């Protein structure tokens, strides 16, 4: 069976995307294109206070003068920002108070995604905020959270009910003019999730948001803000899917996290936006700014991401370690297949003393894809006795894909230690033969080997997500080796 390997490689890389359905629900759109008027339209639709409109307009002014970043190892086709719809909302009764009031089509969408809200509510104790086309549809588990003083709601609700908190923290970690995509998001974001955990409260359930792009020609610009007050703890999960479309759709989200003294935030993402077809047609452009601020001493922020979707991913969940003894963590598995491109990694900015960070990145490339790790570890002069350990591994399936590592290390004092390790390997014929000799078919074998390879990262995921992520890794690579 010569060259069986290549055939199977092709086969596995050619699996289909199972979330590619479209839901037919009534949707309200803003006119196409971006202008001050559109921004005012969005703000008015959402009945926003002046400070927010102001925030949006300032962001828009700056964005108009900005260039999209060119430094990433990505080939991004030109994007016509006037050809995008910036506001699309499923027509539902405003803020449904019970599931009965939610459009049944919408509910069935979430069932197809495997997140029946009621089921989740009862069985798993996961509170779900589902955001479809940027509009938050339903937040479950509200009562339990209310009792503890935990706020978990859509960003729009937060703006209405907790304007002071929003005003205090919005843009405090990712300023409105931080970068091209963050500025765009600041100008047009339509919804997202807001979390506030009060002092000393440990959130008893995993908080979870599911993002779904449904409408065609729209962009998705959600904005998430998580604040953990002193001594608070929360674990937050984010999942995303989109229909299959020939056109590319833009997703430019911003996530900001603030951890005060002794607080801990764990943020997990399973990113499964539509990756495009096997020829590279269609798919989501996933240009996301995620950043956490460890503001107080002994605070901790941990990012875990499993990235399998999107045509192009540009994303660097980062930590600013401002408080003394604070800690940042970044665990990442990125799978690229077919013609997918990913340039992802993290920034660990050590400002406080005795701060520590860990970076574990596992890139897996197949098909004709390109997969880059880009990471910055900066230790400022004052951040004495700080530590970083980085490990960036790449696994290649086949010989037509690319893996790249771009580590940037800046250490400005002598008492800190920064370690970086990197490896590149190929899935070995011996491992595959061993598996197959035990009766395991090639696809399962690859799934097993890849999951084993990514285990260090996967074990960071909350239980509810881990099994799904494992399946996703295997599926994303279907058809990639033999």
């Amino acid at each position, binding site marked *: 069976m*010569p060259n069986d390997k290549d055939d199977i490689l092709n086969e596995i890389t050619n699996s289909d995307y199972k979330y590619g359905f479209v839901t037919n629900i009534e949707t309200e759109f803003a006119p196409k294109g971006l202008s001050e008027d559109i921004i005012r339209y969005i703000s008015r639709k959402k009945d926003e206070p002046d400070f927010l409109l102001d925030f949006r307009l300032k962001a828009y002014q700056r964005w108009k003068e900005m260039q999209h970043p060119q430094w990433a190892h990505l080939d991004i086709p030109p994007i016509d920002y006037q050809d995008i719809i910036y506001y699309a909302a499923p027509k539902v009764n405003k803020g449904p108070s019970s599931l009965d009031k939610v459009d049944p089509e919408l509910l069935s969408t979430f069932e197809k995604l495997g997140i029946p809200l009621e089921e989740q509510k009862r069985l798993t104790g996961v509170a779900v905020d589902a955001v479809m086309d940027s509009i938050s549809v339903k937040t479950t588990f509200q009562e339990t959270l209310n009792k503890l003083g935990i706020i978990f709601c859509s960003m729009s609700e937060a703006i209405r009910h907790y304007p002071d908190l929003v005003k205090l923290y919005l843009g405090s970690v990712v300023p409105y003019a931080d970068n091209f995509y963050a500025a765009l998001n600041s100008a047009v974001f339509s919804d997202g999730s807001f979390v506030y955990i009060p002092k000393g409260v440990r959130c008893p359930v995993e908080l979870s948001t599911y993002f779904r792009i449904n409408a065609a020609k729209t962009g998705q610009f959600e904005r998430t803000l998580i604040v953990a007050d002193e001594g608070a703890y929360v674990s937050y999960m984010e999942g995303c899917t989109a229909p299959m479309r020939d056109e590319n759709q833009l997703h430019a989200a911003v996530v900001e996290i603030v951890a005060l003294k002794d607080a801990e935030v764990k943020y997990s993402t399973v990113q499964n936006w539509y990756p495009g077809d096997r020829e590279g047609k269609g798919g989501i452009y996933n240009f996301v700014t995620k950043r956490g601020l460890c503001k107080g001493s002994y605070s901790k922020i941990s990012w875990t991401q499993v990235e399998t979707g999107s045509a192009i991913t540009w994303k660097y969940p980062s930590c600013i370690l401002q408080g003394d003894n604070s800690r940042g963590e970044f665990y990442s598995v990125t799978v690229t297949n077919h013609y997918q491109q990913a340039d992802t990694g993290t920034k660990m900015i050590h400002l406080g003393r005795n701060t520590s960070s860990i970076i574990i990145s596992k890139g897996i490339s197949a098909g004709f894809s390109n997969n880059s790790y880009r990471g910055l570890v900066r230790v400022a002069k004052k951040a004495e006795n700080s530590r970083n350990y980085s490990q960036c591994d790449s696994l290649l399936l086949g010989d037509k894909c690319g893996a790249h590592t771009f580590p940037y290390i800046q250490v400005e004092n002598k008492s800190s230690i920064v370690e970086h390790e990197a490896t590149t390997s190929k899935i070995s014929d011996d*491992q595959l*033969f061993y598996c*197959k*000799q035990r009766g395991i078919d*090639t696809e399962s074998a690859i799934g097993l080997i890849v999951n084993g*390879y990514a285990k260090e990262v996967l074990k960071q995921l909350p239980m509810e997500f881990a099994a799904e992520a494992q399946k996703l890794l295997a599926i994303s690579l279907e058809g990639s080796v033999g």
Partner: protein
Amino acid sequence: MLLQIKNLHVAIQGKEIIKGIDLVVNEGEIHAIMGPNGTGKSTLASVIAGREDYEVTEGEIVYKGKNLLEMPVEQRAREGIFLSFQYPVEIPGVSMANFMRTALNDIRKYKGLEPLSGSEFLLRMEEKKQLVEIQSQLTNRSVNEGFSGGEKKKNEIFQMAMLEPTLAILDETDSGLDIDALRIVANGVNKLRRPDNAFIVITHYQRLLNYVIPDFVHVLYDGKIVKSGKKELALELEEKGYEWIKKEVASL
């Protein structure tokens, strides 16, 4: 007749390694294949298991009445062929339990059986662990990762017990084992032996054959079976050494 090898010739990268082998293995039999290093023992085992790097230039292999050489590797395994590797490979991050469960269920699916439930699987694993006397920690670890040479070999026997093959090929499973480990391997074979299965035990030494009594012993030399006999042949070999065979072959 379980396995019939007819005039098998095998080449690697254009170089002929197996130069015409005939062998018949029936249900219930244990065959020992002995011979000096580099004579093609592992090559023969790999070809039966279906490793792709080898080119069969002549001859055929019939297994359960079917043309074995046309079957993909995993199908051979599902039809009951098991290879205990001379050098088992490590698969980091994949637990033995997960590995075995995947294997068992893929085999069951092929046979049209329902997958084993979690508890059925654990039960079976416990049972087989006891059968081959392997410590429980081995199955909690990743496949062969950080295992000593002896642990790897015992792990192969454990897997054999789990998968209950029809034709098991043990490629130097005894090499490098201390006497206790050797007994574990031998006991494994003896306990798994049934009237409807067969073993091909490739070994360098006659030591193992004190515990596993073969029905036939074949001496492989320079890609050919140059001598076949009953278990006494192994003793004779032990006594006279491979030089004896080499000379005998040269004089022919």
